[in-house]
């Protein structure tokens, strides 16, 4: 592996920040959801990079469980989006504020 570890970590940090910026700027709930997936994947890349460079399987096992939880989160999150759209006819998160106060 002739690519040093910090390169992978920097790439992962850049992807995470792009995802975070997307969560903060976009107004469509589904796009916000996709940006969260991007952030999850950035963290997965960090875990796999450390796992490979340290020669330990623990990081990759953690990524395996993170993927399973991401799949569960996707199912429940999209079901919530569908339920909200059915009630309020919008997915704009500025108008979805029933839990605000």
């Amino acid at each position, binding site marked *: 592996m002739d690519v040093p570890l910090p390169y992978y970590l920097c790439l992962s940090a850049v992807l995470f920040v792009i995802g975070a910026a997307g969560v903060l700027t976009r107004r469509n709930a589904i796009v916000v959801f996709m940006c969260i997936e991007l952030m999850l994947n950035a963290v997965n890349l960090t875990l796999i990079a450390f796992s*490979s460079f340290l020669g330990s399987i623990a990081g990759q096992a953690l990524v395996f469980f993170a993927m399973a939880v991401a799949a569960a989160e996707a199912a429940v999150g999209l079901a919530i989006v569908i339920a909200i759209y059915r009630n309020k006819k919008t997915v704009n998160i500025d108008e979805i504020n029933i839990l605000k106060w």
Partner: protein
Amino acid sequence: MESLVFFFLAAFAVTTAVLMVLQRSPLVSAIYLIANFFALAALYLLLRAQLLAVLQIVVYTGAIMVLVVFVIMLLNLADETRLRPRIAMRTWITIVLSAGFLAEVMYALLAGGTPAHGPLVSAGAESLGTVESMGGALFGTYLLPFEITSLILLVAILGAVVLAKKKG
């Protein structure tokens, strides 16, 4: 050679991620995210995590993104692409916060902490991510979390059905 592949994949991943955030239409955003996931899967292969590279494509692009695209089409969000223009103030605050966070992480990474080059342990790293070694870990050391994962998935299935069901 390997670093060439890495820089190509990194540029591809960052470009698709930026395009995903900037894109107005959610469906095109989803396509860019799928391209980004493929680049990440190739990066996992570069890190010798073969099983996770396959799972990345099967689980993320094959299951999660299909679900996302399905919901986008189900809700017919074409008119949602013309959401009112973003508030300039919020965009600027986001840019400042993101840039600050990125600078902080980069400083932490490059100023010290992690070793500058080379694998710390190279012996056996080639066979680390194979199905065999991953299976050994998942059904040995991590057997309890593995079983709990099945419980999480069951709860998620029931939750999704209850949430998306039309109220009778």
